[in-house]
């Protein structure tokens, strides 16, 4: 059972309304990035409808890529998301190298893994400390949490900063990294820069351990759901890059990456302009840290597994609120893994391999912080991209998020409107989705019928 480390400012729950028909309608606020809206309708004790609308920025980029040279794809796709550019670059190079019949040597693969570790650290850490932990402690936002817990927030910011440092060292830049290309890297960092990074990552590893222990003591809402988890699986590595990996699930899926579109499809849903991704055979599925943890837990680093064993907390993957703990675990794994790979860093190693041009189709899939990110490219003989398909993890989780909301609301109809809305927001944040939002991204208008 988790312990409550400290209670902060609590919201004042309103009295429960009578159990007639309730509508939770959250209107979209004009944002730079796009739309996010939530509609839930209940009647008595039954949830009649749940509709979640999420904007999908990759759709524009698929069109944007057509006619461009394939070498531009990593730099273009990295701009799809400001917090996970590496994921887009890795899935892009994976698909393009698949098309071109290129296999990079292990040394480049290892450095790509280090770079990806940096992104997992910065993305997960930002989410844990600044976006999600305030929900669990009853704060309006991280700013208010910082007032009561400045050391905790500083810890999170420092850890994120060291994640950024990995990305800057190997990606060339913290934001929109510029050092990744099809075939490898444009340049390798100096040994002195990597040595300085290693010293910081040793401190980061201690902070990551402290993060696991802290979040495992947060008060956890109860919710039990049934998921089909889908993730990459590698014979020996915790899933991250797609090399030598297959896509598996806890319900028997076991396919090669190039079979993705044989088993998954995107369907148009009437209430939203976003497409929902489903398994053709069984419908909704979940991707992300919980899926990876459930399917490949034994491949975490030994020290990470030790820490899990020491916790006075049992992770229940069917409770989506436990995802904050799993993210913290993945942060520790990423730092630990990066350190082990950097122990053998050679600044004079192979920077990249040659790539040619050919008329081909290639498939790639890697594990973004939020889950599997699938890319497919069709190339023309002159190296231009004829067609691109990008399926991000957030759109794959949409139906699952709706199901979670359905289950959550059904169990919490006794709560007042404000409390229930907050719980819905917290539940959506379990997936760290790429949608436009504020601290309270859902504005609630109650319609009682």
């Amino acid at each position: 059972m988790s312990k409550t480390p400290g209670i902060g400012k609590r919201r004042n729950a309103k009295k429960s309304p009578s159990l007639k028909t309730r509508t939770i309608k959250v209107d979209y606020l004009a944002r730079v990035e796009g739309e996010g809206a939530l509609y839930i309708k209940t009647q008595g004790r039954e949830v009649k409808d749940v509709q979640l609308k999420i904007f999908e920025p990759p759709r524009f980029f698929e069109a944007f890529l057509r006619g461009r040279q394939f070498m531009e794809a990593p730099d273009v796709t990295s701009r799809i998301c400001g917090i996970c550019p590496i994921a887009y670059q890795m899935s892009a190079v994976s698909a393009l190298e698949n098309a071109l019949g290129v296999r990079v040597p292990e040394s480049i693969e290892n450095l790509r893994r280090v770079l990806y570790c940096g992104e997992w650290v910065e993305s997960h850490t930002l989410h844990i400390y600044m976006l999600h932990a305030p929900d669990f402690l009853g704060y309006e936002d991280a700013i208010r949490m910082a007032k009561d817990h400045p050391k905790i927030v500083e810890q999170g910011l420092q850890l994120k900063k060291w994640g950024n440092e990995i990305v800057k060292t190997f990606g060339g830049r913290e934001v929109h990294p510029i050092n990744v290309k099809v075939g490898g890297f444009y340049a390798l960092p100096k040994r002195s820069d990597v040595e300085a990074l290693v010293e910081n990552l040793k401190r980061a590893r201690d902070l990551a351990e402290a993060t696991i222990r802290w979040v495992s003591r947060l008060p956890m809402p109860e919710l039990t759901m049934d998921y089909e988890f889908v993730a990459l699986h590698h014979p020996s590595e915790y899933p991250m890059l797609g090399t030598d990996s297959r896509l598996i699930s806890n319900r028997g899926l076991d396919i090669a990456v190039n079979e993705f579109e044989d088993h998954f499809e995107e369907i148009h849903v009437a209430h939203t302009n976003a497409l929902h991704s489903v398994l053709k055979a069984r419908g909704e599925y979940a991707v992300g840290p919980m899926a990876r943890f459930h399917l490949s837990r034994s491949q975490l680093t030994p020290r990470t597994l030790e820490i899990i064993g020491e916790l006075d907390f049992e992770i229940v993957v069917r409770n989506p609120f436990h995802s904050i703990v799993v993210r913290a675990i993945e942060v520790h794994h990423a730092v630990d893994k990066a350190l082990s790979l950097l122990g053998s860093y050679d600044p004079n190693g192979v920077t990249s391999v040659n790539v040619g041009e050919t008329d081909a189709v290639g498939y790639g899939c890697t594990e973004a912080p939020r889950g599997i990110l699938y890319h497919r490219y069709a190339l023309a003989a002159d190296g231009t991209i004829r067609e691109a398909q990008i399926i991000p993890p957030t759109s794959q989780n949409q139906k699952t998020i709706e199901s979670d909301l359905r289950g959550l609301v059904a169990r919490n109809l006794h709560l007042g409107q404000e409390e229930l809305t907050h719980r819905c927001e917290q539940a959506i944040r379990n997936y760290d989705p790429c949608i436009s939002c504020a601290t309270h991204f859902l504005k609630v208008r109650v319609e009682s019928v």
Partner: protein
Amino acid sequence: MSEHSGSVAVIGIGNLLRGDDGAGILVARTLRGMTVPHNVTVFESNGDVTQLLDCFARFQTVHLVDAVQLESAVSRNEPARIFEYDALREEIPMLEKAASSHVLGISQAIALTRMLGKPPSTLKLWGIEGKSFDLGTEPTPQVLQCVKKVAEILFKDINRHC
């Protein structure tokens, strides 16, 4: 207290792929094309909170430049406006709502630097009213005029205090 007394940072924030959202970046690049004093550093940023907090701790004076989107309907034909705020002493109404579910932006960075007690001596926010933020578009002519104007204002300001 900043590391470098008298040091100035100008941080242009934005995304060049989103039309007028690139305004801050363009101001930074315009300034880089001018001869700025040696104690001035010009940055480009996407508004990453740790990067901003780092700058706040390292520099005595910080100018942030970003496009802003107003909630009221904006006419594309009207000139774009420039807003100037003392970010340490004024509440900035247009920053009450963040624009993303998974990144923290300048409003949070400003609030955190106040909360954690490590602000620069001077922190100014320059907002350029954006007309269009559509993906893949060029900045509007009105915003480009404001970019030039803000760069000129900042150039005079940073030279006046050297």
